[in-house]
């Protein structure tokens, strides 16, 4: 068993024939992901990357039994694409698109609330189960199959963590990039819960940023229910107040929003917090050897 996606996932790509969709779908197929087709409205019936193109997600579900979708459509149409996937019965929706207006996402969140689906993102690097399925834009070659789960808001910082885990010889189960926008489908806490329940995961790396309560919420849950060691890093110790640092969600507001405050809360919850992101891999190794 693994989390969210595995070798049996039947994946479609929304925005399949566009530049981003084509490139990343190619990479996903090369990694061995079971990509069963794609959706580009108006191009139904064509073939692309040796896979069928459909006009609607509904058709892709009917014809190919798709249950996972990855979205590369432009920001103005991405909210619509998420809702289309949810309506068609897709179970795991991964939205890579960056720059979706917040107003659109408030509507999406309500729309999918009573649908049987999990949304990852938007504005995220996707989900990757090492050796089985790459549903995202993470570079496949840095992964190696192992038993460490990773939850992160950031793209390249996730790669950093993955790489360190590989370098110390441990490997990953599933890496979940939840995204850095103000409204996201799956929170840090929910992603941590999935990995805690996964019998192929022994330890969890949690990477956060300044802004919001996601990490603190996850920390409180871990304190009550955690059964595996968690190593955490919070980026943005040096970020000045009130400035946007790339991710729309990463604005330092009140005191409890700062990196220092978040780290203090996480430490109180029994989480192993590292101050330098260079120590993630080493720390996980240390923690696991102590608990073993």
């Amino acid at each position, binding site marked *: 068993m693994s989390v969210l996606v595995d070798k049996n996932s039947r994946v479609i790509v929304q925005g399949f024939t566009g530049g981003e969709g084509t*490139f990343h779908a190619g*990479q996903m197929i090369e990694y061995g992901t079971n990509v069963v087709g794609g959706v580009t409205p108006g191009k139904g019936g064509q073939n692309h990357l040796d896979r069928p193109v459909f006009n609607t997600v509904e058709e892709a579900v009917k014809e190919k039994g798709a249950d996972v979708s990855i979205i590369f459509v432009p*920001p*103005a149409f991405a909210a619509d694409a998420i809702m289309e996937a949810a309506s068609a019965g897709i179970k795991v929706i991964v939205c890579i698109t960056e*720059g*979706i*207006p*917040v*107003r*659109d*996402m*408030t*509507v999406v*969140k*309500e*729309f999918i609330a009573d649908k049987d689906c999990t949304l990852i993102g938007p504005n995220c690097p996707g989900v990757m189960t090492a050796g089985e399925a790459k549903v995202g*834009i*993470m*570079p496949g*070659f*840095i992964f190696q199959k192992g038993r460490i789960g990773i939850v*992160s*808001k*950031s*793209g*390249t*910082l*996730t*790669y*950093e963590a993955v*790489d360190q885990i590989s*370098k110390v010889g441990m490997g990953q189960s599933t890496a979940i990039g939840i995204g*850095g926008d*103000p*409204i996201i489908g799956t929170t840090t806490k929910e992603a941590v819960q999935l990995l805690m329940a996964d019998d192929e995961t022994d330890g969890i790396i949690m*990477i956060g*940023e*300044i802004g*919001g*309560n996601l990490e603190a919420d996850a920390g409180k849950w871990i304190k009550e229910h955690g059964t595996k060691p968690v190593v955490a*890093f919070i*980026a*943005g*110790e*040096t*970020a*000045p107040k009130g*400035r*946007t*640092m*790339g*991710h*729309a*969600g*990463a604005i330092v507001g009140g005191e409890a929003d700062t*990196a220092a405050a978040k780290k203090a809360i996480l430490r109180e919850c029994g989480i192993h917090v590292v*101050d*330098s*992101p*260079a120590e993630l891999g080493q720390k996980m190794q240390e923690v696991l050897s102590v608990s073993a």
Partner: protein
Amino acid sequence: MNLHEYQGKSILKSYGVAIQEGIVADTAAEAVEAAKKLNEQTGTEWFVVKAQIHAGGRGKGVVTETGSHGVVLAKGLDKVEGCAAGILGGHLVTAQTNEKGKKVNKVLIAQDVYYPGESEPDEFYMSVLLNRESGKNIIMYSTEGGMDIETVAEETPHLIFKEEIDPRAGIQGFQCRKIAFNLGLSGQAFKQMSKFVKSLYEAYVGCDASMFEINPVLKTSDNKIIAVDSKVSLDENALYRHPDYAEMRDKTEEDPMDVEAGEAGLNFVNLDGNIGCMVNGAGLAMATMDIIKFSGGEPANFLDVGGTADAERVEKAFNLILKDPAVEGILVNIFGGIVRCDRVANGIVQAYKSIGNVPVPIIVRLQGTNAVEAKKVIDESGLNVHSAITLQEAADKVKEIVS
């Protein structure tokens, strides 16, 4: 994107929100003309002269050159020119600016709304913003208007109320009434407040705002409800839907380096430290700034070059960082996933040669796809560039520069 008071009010008014009327002016002479026109339109005989800068606390703030406050009441048409001259062109220092203050290029000549009448005027606080936890917008309001809301939150938190709005149904009549009741209003003022809240929320959604703060919302002595100030921030991702609002951007309010970076497609924030950095990805960029700090330096900037770190972008990024005379070294941290490190390395060497004399040492940490080839390119370039592969190595090299 932040707007000036006068711009925010113009948006509010277009959605039917009652505002304190005013006319914006660039010079003292224009201010007098504005006051005359405003007198004809509204009958006001006193005028409020308000500095237009992107910072709060203007009323208590002081203009360095003249000693004038940033918001002044001109008690008569003949006083307007002097009041405006005391503010325009000066630097206004407030609790929210740095010690140099912000240059005032425009003043808003506004009607006096605190006139005497049948009842006492009363001030309230109201803001609209996203509650990130629930993913829904909330209206936050308080009977304690005209004050710093952080102070109210600290000293009298029970006087702050919140109303969450369903994104699909929009704001409902009962919610508007509840807000008006909680603010202690009755009669005409109650009706006016309900209407005010409804149109304010519709404006927030309609213009794709990321924040509205109206402080104070005023109940006038004749029971009208109006926005006396406006702090409006718009969602930049939604500006494509509002080309007219996109034109409201005032680049003079932003750091010129940030503006230049934005035009080059780089995500840049200028900071006060001594070590510049150039990184791909916002999260890794913040983490790199933290590493600089833990190595004894202070980050001079935040810079996310994005997914395509080609020679042209790298050169622009270097040039931006080097504009800051405080920079003693530059740390480049690229995790090549899709982007190949050797290509980035060649870009760095090319940019370095094209700039010519780079006066500070550069540490280049390239990790990921083709990292080994990239290190070779850097090491064999013969330039004042140090290569590193792990984050820890990069941190150690920063330490050497700082000491």
